[in-house]
Every structure is written in structure tokens, then in C-alpha cells.
């Protein structure tokens, strides 16, 4: 009985301890450079929990992170190391802007924009899937490379095709009919949050309540066993990629139609950059579980929102704030990271050997 309770509590303790270690390390770094750690952490936590405004801002920031976190989490569950969310987000965002050129009634327009974003993200996940299934190209390589292709394609598209004729620095804004309404006035929180949450629950249901999800997880945990049981491995891998792409594509679309005040992309795509990579951190902190990802995204977003107040009220410069964030995130992700490395190392070794021998 006692060991059962311990097993339940141990992960909580792990994360809690990891968080404390991260905070302590951050405090030491700040103290070394002559900033006041207590003031800074005070600013950080009051920013997240201290006001309704702060919490709304946190949720607004968490909205896309939930989805990009899902992309990575689904990948790990299905046995792939998918870091293509970044590029898929760009494609989703571009698609959402493109369809805003259509004129449609408002409800339908929102739906069309989200679906277009999801489709674009999914389509962008197909090349790495295809390369993996047919040629055995490792997805880490192909997704990283395709992220760059998407980035420069996006920049080109924003300047050449979707540029705002009056404002050289940004694309045209999403049509007013395709925008999601603001939920709490005076904040950036829109109904995009519910789209994100709904998607997360859908994935949860899919992974644990359907045959497809079951097969996907079996392939992820033990491809040999899956093969023995007659599960089509390639089909499952492809589904994993597509599901991830859908999530990231929706994230990109939401950053356009649910992101005031511009509802547009800047020519360097900076409003959608790093969401995919942050998603990896979110997934790791959330232990690659669709529900865990939601909470992890909120925490991650809180750090982002707190960065502002650490800068403004505690006088810690942005660069230092980001170092502190990095330390905390690494510490929190460490438990899952260790587990994942243990799982992944043999696979990578096999792959390297295969490449060497072939």
C-alpha cells in the first residue's frame, strides 16, 4: 500500500524538486550578477497569479503552446521524435491568412481558417513521414531541415504575396469575419483557448479510447511487438505525423485569427517563431500526456508573461530573464528528458549503425 502511494507521489515530488532546483539555480545566477532574486521571483509569480489580467495573459500565451506541445507529445507516444512543429506552425499561419482573402460569413470563415491551418500543417508533415517510411530518413533530420524551408517560404510569402501594401513590415491582417472574438476585454485572451483545449481533449480521447490510438501507442512503445500483433507500422507512423501536423497547423492559424492586435504575420514571422520549439519543452514538462501538456503550457506561458514583469518591475534585463527561464525549464524537463533519452538512445544507435553499414 505504502509503495503504491509512493509511486503515485514520486513523480509529483520529482517535478516539485526539479522546480525548486531550477528556481534556486536561477536565484544564484541572478545574485551573482547583482540582481535581487526575491524581487524578481515576486514579480514573476504575481504576474501569473496576482491578477485576473495576468492569468488571462498567461492563458492567451498558453493557447498555441498547448497545441505545439501536443505535436511533440503525440510523436513520442507514436515512437517518433517530431520537431517539425515549428515549420508546421508557419504553414498553418500562412494558410489562415490566405483564406482571409475569401469573403465568407463570420462563423464559417473562422472554421475555414482553422481547417485550412490544420490542413497546411498536416500537409507539411507528410514529407518527413514519407521520407521515413520509404527511405528510412530519420525524422529529426528531415523535420529540422523542413523547418528552415518553411521559415524562408513564409518570409517570401509574406513579402511577395500576402504583404500589406501600406505597411511593409507585416502581412495583411486576417479578415474581421475570420477573427476569433476576445474573451476578456483588455487582454489578448480570445476564444482560441477553447479551440486549443478541445483539440487537446480530442487527442486524449483518440490516443486512449480508439483503436488507432492504441495501435499508435503500441508502435511507439514496441515496434516489434506491434508488428507481431499485425499492426501496420507505416500506417501508424504516418498517422502520428499527420496528427502532430494538424495540431501545429491549428496553432499557427490561431496565432493569426486569435491574436490581437495585428491578426497578421510580421515579415520575419517573429510572432509565430519558437512556438514549435517551446512546444518540445512543454511536452517534456507535461510528460507527453495530452492533459499534462495543458498544465505545462500554462506554466510555460506563465514564465513568458512573468518575464515582462521581471523586466519592468524588478529591473532584471530581458537577457537575464531568459537565462533564468531556461534554467527553470531545463530543470523541470529533466525527469522526462532522462527517461526519453534512455528510450531513444538505442534507437538512434541502431539508426547510425544502419547508415554506416548501408
Amino acid at each position, binding site marked *: 500500500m505504502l509503495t503504491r502511494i509512493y509511486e503515485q507521489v514520486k513523480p509529483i515530488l520529482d517535478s516539485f524538486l526539479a522546480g525548486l532546483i531550477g528556481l534556486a539555480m536561477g536565484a544564484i545566477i541572478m545574485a551573482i550578477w547583482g540582481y535581487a532574486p526575491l524581487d524578481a521571483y515576486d514579480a514573476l509569480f504575481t504576474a501569473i497569479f*496576482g491578477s485576473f489580467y495576468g492569468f488571462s495573459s498567461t492563458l492567451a500565451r498558453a493557447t498555441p503552446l498547448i497545441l505545439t506541445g501536443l505535436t511533440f507529445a503525440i510523436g513520442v507516444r507514436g515512437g517518433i521524435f517530431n520537431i517539425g512543429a515549428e515549420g508546421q506552425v508557419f504553414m498553418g499561419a500562412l494558410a489562415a491568412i490566405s483564406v482571409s482573402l475569401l469573403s465568407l460569413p463570420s462563423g464559417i470563415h473562422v472554421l475555414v481558417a482553422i481547417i485550412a491551418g490544420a490542413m497546411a500543417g498536416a500537409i507539411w508533415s507528410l514529407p518527413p513521414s514519407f521520407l521515413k517510411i520509404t527511405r528510412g530518413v530519420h525524422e529529426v533530420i528531415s523535420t529540422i531541415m523542413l523547418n528552415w524551408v518553411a521559415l524562408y517560404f513564409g518570409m517570401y510569402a509574406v513579402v511577395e504575396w500576402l504583404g500589406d501594401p501600406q505597411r511593409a513590415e507585416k502581412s495583411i491582417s486576417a479578415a474581421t469575419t475570420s477573427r476569433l472574438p476576445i474573451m476578456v476585454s483588455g487582454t489578448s485572451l480570445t476564444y482560441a483557448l477553447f479551440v486549443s483545449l478541445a483539440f487537446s481533449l480530442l487527442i486524449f480521447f483518440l490516443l486512449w479510447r480508439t483503436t488507432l490510438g492504441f495501435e499508435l501507442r503500441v508502435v511507439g512503445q514496441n515496434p516489434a511487438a506491434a508488428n507481431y500483433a499485425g499492426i501496420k507500422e507505416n500506417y501508424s507512423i504516418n498517422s502520428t505525423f499527420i496528427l502532430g501536423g494538424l495540431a501545429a497547423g491549428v496553432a499557427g492559424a490561431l496565432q493569426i485569427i486569435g491574436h490581437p492586435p495585428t491578426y497578421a504575420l510580421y515579415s520575419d514571422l517573429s510572432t509565430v517563431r519558437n512556438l514549435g520549439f517551446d512546444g518540445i519543452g512543454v511536452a517534456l514538462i507535461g510528460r507527453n500526456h495530452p492533459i499534462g501538456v495543458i498544465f505545462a503550457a500554462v506554466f510555460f506561458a506563465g514564465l513568458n508573461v512573468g518575464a515582462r514583469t521581471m523586466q519592468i518591475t524588478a529591473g532584471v534585463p530581458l537577457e537575464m530573464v531568459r537565462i533564468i527561464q531556461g534554467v527553470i525549464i531545463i530543470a523541470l524537463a529533466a525527469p522526462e528528458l532522462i527517461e526519453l533519452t534512455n528510450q531513444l538512445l538505442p534507437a538512434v544507435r541502431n539508426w547510425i549503425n544502419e547508415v554506416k553499414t548501408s
Partner: protein
Amino acid sequence: MFKFDSIFTRFIALSLVIGLVSFGITVVSSVGINASAQEKKKIAVVTDVGGRGDLSFNDMGFKGADEAAEEFGVELQVAQPASEADYLPNVRTLARTGDYEVIIGVGFLLTDAIETAAKQFPDQNFALIDAVVDQPNVLNFVFKEQESSALVGALAAMTAAHYDYSKVGIVLGIEIPPLWKFEAGYRFGIKWGLDYYEKVTGEKANVDLLWTYTGTFSDVAKGKSSANAQISQGAGLIYNVAGPLGLGILEAVKDNLNQRGKESGPPFMIGVDANQDYMGNGNKVLASGMKRIDRASYIAVKRAVEGNFKGGTEVLGLDDQGVGLSRYSLLVDFMQFGLKGDQIKEENIETIKENWLEMREEIPQFIWTGVNELENLIVSGNVTPPVPSTEEEMKDVRKEYP
């Protein structure tokens, strides 16, 4: 069962603990803050993604606010974004405190953020530099770039004539209405400069304009290739109206000088917005058509502190030093930025100063007198460079000043 329960409870527990800890810290520290009542007034500068150290817009915006803060004894707070998604939250977070006399948005990238925040916080003063937002609590600053461009054009035309070059060039970014002001002013200045040259020397100089819209504000290589093309067609000076593409223009100038075994121009580049004269060791950028972001942020702070802040739009021109030709004192200021940004080394500063002074002394005095005369004429309102606002008007300007 699946792991839902354990993860769920774990996060609840974690957030509870964090919440409690933060609550504790808040209570402790708020007691501390209340004990020391704050009297000093505060102002805030919100930069764009370039942030501090960009040696241009943001550094200048900071410089003006910093000088004003010192002069009027107020506290300056800078909010720097990690990405463009941070603009509005940064402005809002500052505005929500209600502690700031004025919140200054540096650069047109902050337009949407300032507009949204201004509507939400009608009692907060905002200033926006280089763009216009129509709100009663926003003071906008825009610049008469056509005036600085006219000075630069006159200088370029006369210098080209003096060195027997048949062309002057201008390399621009994407063709958007704000850039027409530069082009029109430059064209106007060239004509004026050539007339003045003829009046003084008695000989008619034939200097034509080469102009290129590169369609980019970021592709440095295009700056170089455009400048190379213009130099090979005989351009002696090239005005950079494309931000970072200036680095490419400077490269083209350097290549040409190297081929001929020379150190100092011509050909020269002409800088834009910031003081870029120190680039290329102080003898390759003859002058810069400056936009004084620092003046704007200084004025915003001054008005806010003195209590006569009012929304509206200020158009800063030559008359109030909002734009102008680069001078020695500004060169020294900007070299300090360059030093901090690791663009130049401490030991080179003296060389750059000497090179710069030598370069400017090479240009005959009557040319500088001419440029000063044009400045006086513009300030007194006797001469007005054209300001095209539509494509038609720009076409007319191009016909009138070919």
C-alpha cells in the same frame, strides 16, 4: 487506468505550492515596498524587436529619453520585447501600473500596440515615434525626411560634379509611400545643388540620377549588387534608403576603392536615419540624412514632465532639428553606441575622427556653404521640397526632377 490522475494531481499540487510561495513572497515584499514611498516620477520606453544595441532607432529613442530623464530627474524604464508578440503586452503591463507619466513607443512597429493600449487606457499618455495613431492621448512624431533628403541630394550632386562623376545614386527598400518622401527630396536637392554649382563655378555640370527600389529591407546582398551596378554606371555617391542594405552599399564602395588602391572615397555612401558616418573607418560615408528619434523621445518626456502633454501629431523638420545632416558632435555620440555594440574598437575612434575630418575638408567650402544655404531656405520656408502622397504625384515629381 491511464496516468491521468497522477499527472493531474501532480500539477494541482505543484501550482498550489507555487501559488502559496508566491503569495507569501508578495505579502512580505509588498510590506517592504509600501514602507518606502516612491516620489520620483517615471517614464517608460518600449523598444521594437531591434532592442537596445541596434545602433539606430532604439538606441536613439533611448538616448533622448535618457537625457530627458536625467535633466528632469525622472526614472526611466525600458521594456524590450522577445518577439513582436510582446509589443502589446509590454505596453499594457506598463500602462496598467498607472505609474508612468508617458509611455514611448519607438518605431512604427509599435503602431497597433500603442493604438490598442491607448483606447484601453484613456488616461495614460502615450507617444509614438515614426507613425501616426489617431487617439486623443497619443502624441505622434513623424519627420520631414524630404528635407534631410534634399540636403543630402544637394551635397551629393555638387560633390559628384566636383569629382567629375556623371551620376549620383539612391538605393531604396520596398516601394511604399513613406519612401517617396526620401526619393522626392533627394531629386529636388540634386536639381537645387546643380543650379547652385553652376551659379558659383560658372560651369554647367551634367549629373544624372540612378535609382533602384530593391524590394527588400533585409537582403544585404541586394544592396551590394544594386550599388555595384550604379557605381559601374558612373555613380559617385549613393544614398542608402534601405536600412541594413547600407552594409551592402558600403561593401560595394569598399570594393571599388580597393580596386583602385584607394582608402577614401569617392565613391561615397550617404547614410540614413542614424549617423552612419563612422562606418567604413570614417572616410567612406560622406554624410547621413538623419532622423532624430532622440529629439522626439526627448520632447515627449519634456512635455509629460512639465505637464503640457497633449495628443496630436508633431511633424519634426529641419527647423526643430528633427531631421538634418550629420555633424561632428553627433558622430561622437554615435561612436559611443558603436563602441557599446562592438561595431568599432576603442583604439580606432581617433583614426575615425581624423579620417572623417579629412574627408570633409577635401570637399570644397562652397559646397558646404551651398548646403547650409539650402537648409536656411527650407527653414525659412522660401523653398519647399515636394511631398508626394499618391503614385500620380510621385510620377509628376519624377518628371519634374528627372
